[in-house]
């Protein structure tokens, strides 16, 4: 028996599969207990994640997280496809589908926890002590700033993916990132010169 892919089952479970493939998958699920259990497991995982979402900090950016997760899951599937199939026994072996569901649930839990950890505010190292008054440039998890005399101006990298920091030894600090909304390369620069 030809079984649908994990990706199709996941998309079907969340009603994200196209109607034509959904019809075919409907027919298959009527005949295959193993795949039906996997779909149920995907649905239960989603519900569990939604329930546990209430425990996350309110400032967590869900839209960003969801888009990151979608991109990472697709990337994982593609990387997996390049690495080649993992030989498994027939899907009729029900104990195997249980393991797969558990593995899927564990992966999603790890992904959500990682995202939560990444969104946590990081502790800030102490500033450099200066001999005299002057401007201090500082990188924080949310932006780069120049500070002096109790005042500061910070350029925030809102919606940033991976930020590349570069210091200019003549007295500047640069943050380069991809704007998540536009996909554009954005470079912030603060200068103490």
């Amino acid at each position: 028996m030809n079984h649908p892919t994990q990706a199709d089952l996941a998309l079907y479970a969340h009603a994200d599969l196209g109607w034509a493939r959904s019809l075919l998958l409907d027919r298959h699920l009527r005949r295959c207990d193993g795949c039906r259990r996997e779909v149920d497991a995907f649905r239960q995982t989603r519900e569990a994640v939604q329930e546990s979402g209430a425990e996350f900090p309110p400032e967590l950016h869900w839209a960003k997280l969801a888009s990151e997760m979608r991109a990472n899951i697709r990337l994982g599937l593609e990387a997996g496809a390049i690495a080649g199939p993992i030989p498994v026994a027939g899907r009729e072996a029900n104990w195997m589908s249980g393991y797969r569901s558990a593995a899927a649930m564990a992966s999603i839990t790890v992904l959500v926890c990682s995202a939560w950890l990444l969104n946590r505010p990081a502790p800030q190292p102490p500033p450099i002590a200066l001999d005299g008054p002057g401007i201090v440039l500082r990188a924080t998890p949310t932006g780069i700033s120049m500070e002096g005399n109790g005042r500061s101006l910070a350029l925030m990298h809102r919606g940033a993916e991976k930020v590349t920091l570069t210091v200019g030894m003549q007295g500047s600090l640069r943050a380069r990132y991809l704007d998540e909304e536009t996909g554009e390369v954005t470079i912030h620069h603060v200068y103490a010169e």
Partner: protein
Amino acid sequence: MSMRNSLLALTLSCAAACFAQTGPASRSSLKVNLPADSPVTLLSADWGESSASERGSAMVLNLHTSLSLRNSSSRRIRGITWMVLSQEVTPGGRASVTKASLDIAPGEAFPVRLDLRLLRPLGPGQLQTGTPLVEMSLDGVLFEDLSFFGPNRLESRRAMTALELEAQRDRRYFLQVLSANGAEALRKECLASLARQADTPRLDVQMARGRATAVEPERQVQFAFLRFPDSPVDPVAGMAQVAGAEARAPRLEVHNKSTRAVKSLEVGWLLRDSRGREFWAGTVPAKASLSPGQKTEVLGQTAFRFAEPAGAPVTIDSMTGFVSQVEFTDGTVWIPSRTALGDARLQHALAPSAEEQRLTGIYRRKGLSAVVEELKKFQ
């Protein structure tokens, strides 16, 4: 709304209202300056979720604005840099926002977003009437033929030209992979780049001018160098004062081995910590008037403290430098080739170019066909 020959003052009402506690309510909060013959025009400004609040004895203003601009020139725009000034908040300090790897056709509208946080002490009489909190001025626009418009006060011409050359180099490389080995090879290239990006170690940094008061004893550390065969300038010798996680006053000697006069250059700087891990620390940019065959010294006058993202200080053990950019007096710019950057140490410590990051970002979000489409757009 035409912005030519004008100085546009925009009022952010919510910020003005909040800052009214310490200053006049009707003052302008953001001023956008465009030169008379600017190749971009301002269409509108959206203030989004801007807000102001008190934090202890300070006032915090969060400015989230998106400017809608139009390319009013006859050439495609590849990059744009805005200088951001706030004299009342940080006298003497400047900031800039650059958008690179653009492809804005003549007549096309495009957004530039600015997310700023200003912090100043609460107290009467500290704001001057009529002075905007923030001023944005066009510093430069780079076009597809590498021609440039703007006052270039922040050296944005060199920076944007180098970014565009990197973009052209990396698009060429990706296209060559596609044409020589097919779509699957390009997919593998994208995945390898994403894996490298995820593995690139990152440092947090603080920087101050002058002498930092380090607790640990200071020592002099010599630079080791990576030399690229096609580089017009070679590093000869260099050192910096190091104390624990702090480095200051880097001093480098460079030699122009080309036949062309050099106007400025940048030396990249890698740090190795006491555990043998290597990090990208930054650059030593310098205006260096170097005739062919001439040597000169490049000096940095700042102190840096490096830390891991979790806050733990990085103990600096050794340093490596390499020439990462050279600008000639005719305005042309040299950047290292992909072959030169293929050095194992650089591959590990150096983040990929902005364009490679952008292309692999497209791959991650939209898939391989979107990357191929994007590459063909620039051909």
